[in-house]
């Protein structure tokens, strides 16, 4: 992959779900990604519509030890040298949905019409050429940001990027960060 030479290793992805205003700009932009085959792979949903207008946004977190790959019966999911967890290998994926149901962040899509799992792969056509992912370039509220840690520190001095998550008893470490209160080191999903 010749273009991979242009991947910027100092750039990181930062999410701040509280900044999501549910505008769906990222959803539309995501469909511009050629590695997704122009299918939108980002999730924006209401958290609990009956009680709040809170929305949340979710991209693939690109886990260090991806659960999706571990539960895949077809060895269809792989992580590259930059830590990007790629969408299912179309030749191998058997459409079982193990990854869809086991991903702790609820990221992979089962595309029923294609009999295939698809997911965000950090806009690899763009990031491997040194560009930013589509969603991060259009997000108007700063819920999605792609840049250096230094840029993020200047923009959000009261927050810390966190990439450790506790889902029940399982600790998951990711490439993508969630912006948390300044002293936080882990996001506990269940107390």
């Amino acid at each position: 992959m010749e273009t991979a030479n242009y991947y910027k290793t100092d750039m990181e992805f930062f999410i701040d779900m509280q900044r999501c205003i549910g505008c769906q700009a990222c959803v539309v932009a995501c469909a511009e990604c050629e590695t997704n085959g122009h299918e939108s792979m980002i999730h924006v949903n209401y958290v609990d519509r009956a009680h709040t207008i809170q929305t949340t946004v979710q991209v693939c977190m690109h886990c260090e030890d991806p659960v999706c790959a571990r539960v895949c019966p077809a060895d269809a999911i792989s992580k590259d040298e930059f830590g990007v967890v790629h969408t299912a290998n179309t030749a191998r994926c058997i459409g079982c949905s193990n990854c869809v149901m086991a991903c702790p962040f609820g990221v992979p899509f089962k595309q029923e019409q294609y009999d295939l799992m698809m997911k965000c792969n950090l806009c690899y056509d763009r990031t491997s050429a040194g560009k930013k992912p589509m969603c991060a370039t259009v997000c108007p509220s700063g819920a999605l940001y792609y840049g250096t840690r230094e840029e993020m520190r200047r923009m959000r001095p009261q927050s810390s990027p966190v990439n450790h998550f506790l889902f029940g008893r399982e600790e998951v470490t990711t490439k993508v960060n969630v912006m948390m209160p300044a002293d936080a080191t882990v996001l506990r999903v269940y107390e």
Partner: protein
Amino acid sequence: MFSYHLNKKAFWIAALATLLLLALVFIGSRNLQNFDAALIAYLFGTVFATFGIVYRYAVWLQRPPTWLYFKRTWQILFSGRFLPYLWLFLRKSVRNIGFQYFIRPRGGRRWWGHFLLATGCMLAFAVTIPLTLGWIHFTMNPATSMDPAVSKLYEAHLFGFKVFEFRLGSIIASLVFNVLSWSSWLVIIGVGLFIYRRFTNGGLIATQSFEGDWLPLVLLVAIAVTGLGLSYDYAFLGGTTYEFMAVTHAVTVIVFLVWIPFGKFFHIIQRPAQIGVYLYHTEGNRKGMAVCPHTGKEFTSQQHVDDLKALTHELGIDFTINGQRSHLDYSPEGKRSMLAQAHLKARQESGRYFG
């Protein structure tokens, strides 16, 4: 540094399969009487490929998620609903293995490319593998060959038994003798469509690799072109390039065979697992669906959730919450909402929603 641990179970299964194949070569060719010695290099390639394919398949099956689907497929097929599931199994096999129709919604040209390529390969396998193993051979009908006044009959034998005969010069004869040429053309057209995709699709250009994506296409086209060369060299060039074509064809085919267990072509062996997945989800949905505690909606079968809990436990992944519930009880949307609520709570407790 390269290190590899031999998987003993897989090794013995592969060794047994290879010995079985060799025994079938002796039996099928009637103690090598019908074995074509000119194909000896192909035989070695096929034997090695058999060992490699079975070895890798056996290693693959030992992975817990793979074993789960393998085991469940046969349990479900031979359950009390054998006939409907056998029908589903056969229907999906013809549709998705024979015609690879699941690729059609991903793109018309993409499906045509794969269908032509796969059909060409399957036709060629159906002819060349039994020929290489000495299971089929052809002879001239002795009675007609002695009489110059009648048209000659050609006989096909399987495992030494005559299975059918056809008249030389007939349409059937033309189809039988040229089946490999036709399959080569199918492969060439299919590969051409895929090469076009790989030159024009930005997503593929970003993610493709030479070994994983281009080499298989190059290899297939080399096999097809040199295979055609063998026939057309005789037809149009008087056999002047035969040696080159024969050696290049043999080398490319043997590389193809030997590479099946290691590279992209292993997906040919893996694909039938998809049929098991259809059975699994059909049976799971019949038994009952899981309801997400957050969204209140059905999202997958309860069997799938329960199997995933057991599977993640086996893999050393523990999503249990307070020893009772599990993160796996939540639908993907529910999981995202749980994360967002936890994030909101952490922000609220810090006294700042943003910052």
